[in-house]
Each structure stands twice: as structure tokens, then as C-alpha cells.
């Protein structure tokens, strides 16, 4: 077990590609994406039946955080969207069928 940061991003699905590129460039190569997320933000929103949000979760090393934020923040300014950071712990697992 060791400490990681959880990055949660909620954004319009049109931005998805760019956000994932941004994470990748910042050194965060793993992520999970949940689609078809409905939502309501600070700004009056487009209709979410048509243009749905995505919820992106990525766990990363704490030291990558600064670069991530620098890469993601300008993207969120465009269509709106929100980014949150919290603490978590990773259960390291080494793939090994034999141990099953």
C-alpha cells in the first residue's frame, strides 16, 4: 500500500480527448472514464440529453499533481467542467496467474 492522489474530472464529453491527452502528457497514463453522466454546474448548461458529461478518474503519484493541474486547468475553462483532488491509497498488485 502506498499513497496516491485521486484526480476526479467532470467535463463535457467533447473535451474528453483533450483531457486524456493532457493527463498523458503530465505522466498520468492510466485512467477510467464513465460516460453518460448527467449534471448541472455553475453555468447554465446545455441540454445534457444531447451533450453529455464524462466523469474521469485517475489515480497518480503525488508528485505528478502539479503538472496535471497545469495541463487540465485551461481545458476546463473552455466548456466548463470541474476538477477535484483527494487522497487515496493504492493496493499494489502484480499480475501473476500462478498465485491464483
Amino acid at each position, binding site marked *: 500500500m502506498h499513497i496516491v492522489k485521486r484526480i476526479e474530472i467532470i467535463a463535457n464529453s467533447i473535451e474528453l480527448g483533450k483531457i486524456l491527452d493532457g493527463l498523458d502528457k503530465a505522466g498520468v497514463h492510466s485512467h477510467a472514464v464513465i*460516460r453518460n453522466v448527467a449534471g448541472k454546474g455553475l453555468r447554465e448548461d446545455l441540454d445534457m440529453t444531447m451533450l453529455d458529461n464524462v466523469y474521469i478518474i485517475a489515480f497518480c503519484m503525488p508528485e505528478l499533481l502539479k503538472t496535471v493541474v497545469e495541463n487540465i486547468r485551461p481545458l476546463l475553462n473552455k466548456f466548463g467542467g470541474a476538477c477535484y483532488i483527494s487522497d487515496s491509497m493504492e493496493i499494489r498488485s502484480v499480475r501473476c496467474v500462478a498465485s491464483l
Partner: protein
Amino acid sequence: MDLNASLIISNILNPPVLFFFLGMTAVFVRSDLEIPAPVPKLLSLYLLFAIGFKGGVELIKSGITQEVVLTLLAAISMACIVPIYTFFILKLKLDNYDAAAIAATYGSISAVTFITASAFLTELGIDFDGYMVAALALMESPAIIVGLILVNLFTTDGKRDFSWSEVLQEAFLNSSVFLLVGSLLIGVLTGEHGWQVMEPFAQGMFYGVLTFFLLDMGLVAARRIKDLQKTGIFLIAFAILIPIFNAGIGLLIARFIGMPQGNALLFAVLCASASYIAVPAAMRMTVPEANPSLYVSTALAVTFPFNIIVGIPLYLYGIELLWR
């Protein structure tokens, strides 16, 4: 007006329009009816595919005649001119940002309104040509560009240095335009032969899918109605009168270049309808100063229902008067 009323009623008594009402009613009586995501997206992909493919098949049958070229030129012209005069009307009451964004919305088109109108024509037994789908595709994007040019001309905040390549990408390669044009081209390439194998899917399901989709649109539009309180009476009047005005101009042009009646109705509907998907997405990106609730709510909760319920038969009545 007699004929007109009977047309409105025969339009309203169509299953798609009635299911649109049913959707609105569900919201008003607070039923928990909903079409779960991503079904509405799937239905709209199907509708774009079906209308595009059929249009392509018919386009290759008719060939590219002078009539076709004239119609498409008229379509592009209207897509460029409508946002300009709409902008100046809107500037009477709104700031430049909101005016430009709403103008772009009304310069573009609503594919679902077009599809509903085509189903209405099919039911009345009035013919229309496949190349009207090409007109639909051509009219979706120009208003975005015109809207941005207007913002750049009439505001002076210097630092608006967004990337035009990205804007053009959003305008011409968004999924609606891409699927519609792609299906049209494939329809052209496969022709009658391709149509035969696809018919039960592309034609047989069409009416039913449209009905389900309009049920969902009814739910969506009704949820937007409470937003109208914030938009004010000027915009609500605008959202009803400008479609009639645009349709009128469209009909005059159609008469002038000699379109057949079916095509003329579809052209009028294209002029009258407003975009609530592609353009809002582009505007939110490029004119973030504009308030999305203004352009989405008017297009979706006023103009769309108005066109679906009253507009389509009204424009057809206009045609019957003008083409006499």
C-alpha cells in the same frame, strides 16, 4: 384559414407529434417516464443515417441538375444571411455576445424538425427530392462561422485568439454533419441496389424511431420550459416570430427558383428551425461570454415545439397559397 386549421389538425394527429405531447405531459404531471441514456443518442444516429442514406440513393437517381444546384445555392445563402439580419434584430435588446450566439443558432437548422416535416410530407403523399438532405447538411455549419465573424467585428476585446482550425473542425466534422454527409455519400455510391437490402431497416423503422425520439424531445423541451422565465418576453416573441419570418423568405426564394412544393416546405422548415445541439456546443466554446440558457432554451423549448406543431402545417398552407 380553414385549410390551414385542418392541416394543423392532421399534423397534430400524427403519432410522432402526439408522442411529443405525451413527453411534455409526462414532465408536467411529474411522471417518472424517461428514455434512458444513451438511447436518445442512438435514435438520433439512426435518424441521421436513415435520412442521409435515403437522400443519397435518391440524389443519384435524380442526378445533379440545375435545379439541384440552385437549391443548394439558396440553402447556403440563407444559412449565411439569416444570422446577419437576425443579429441586428437581436441587438435591439441584447448585448453583442448574446445576439451573435442566438443569431448563429437560428441561422443553423434542426435536423429533427426537418425529419418530422419529411414524415409529414410522406404521409400526405407529397413528393420531395433526396437532395434536400444535402441542403440540410450544407445549412448546419455556415451560421457558426458567420456568428464568430460578427462577434469579432462588433466586439473589441482583442484577446479573442481562439484557433480557427478547431472551430472549423467543430463546425464541419461534428458527429451529426459527419454521419449525415457520410450516409449521403454511401447512398450515392450504393444506389438502388444498396437501398433494397437496407430498406426494412432504413425505411420500415423510420417512423417508429422518429416517434420514440420525439417522445424524448418532448421530455427534454418541457424540462427547459421553466428556463423561459429568465429569458423574458422579447426572446419568446422572437422565438416564434423569426421562424415564421425566415420561413416566409425561404418560401419566396423557393417560389422564385421554382422548387416543387415538397422541397419548398422542407426548405422553409430549414430556414425556420434553430439548432439546439451543434451550434450551442460551438458557441459555448468560442463565445463563452454569451449565456447558453438564452440560446438553448429558446431554440429547444419555444421554436422547436412551435415548428413541430404549428409551423410545419402553417408553411404548407403558405405554399398552397403561393403556388396556386
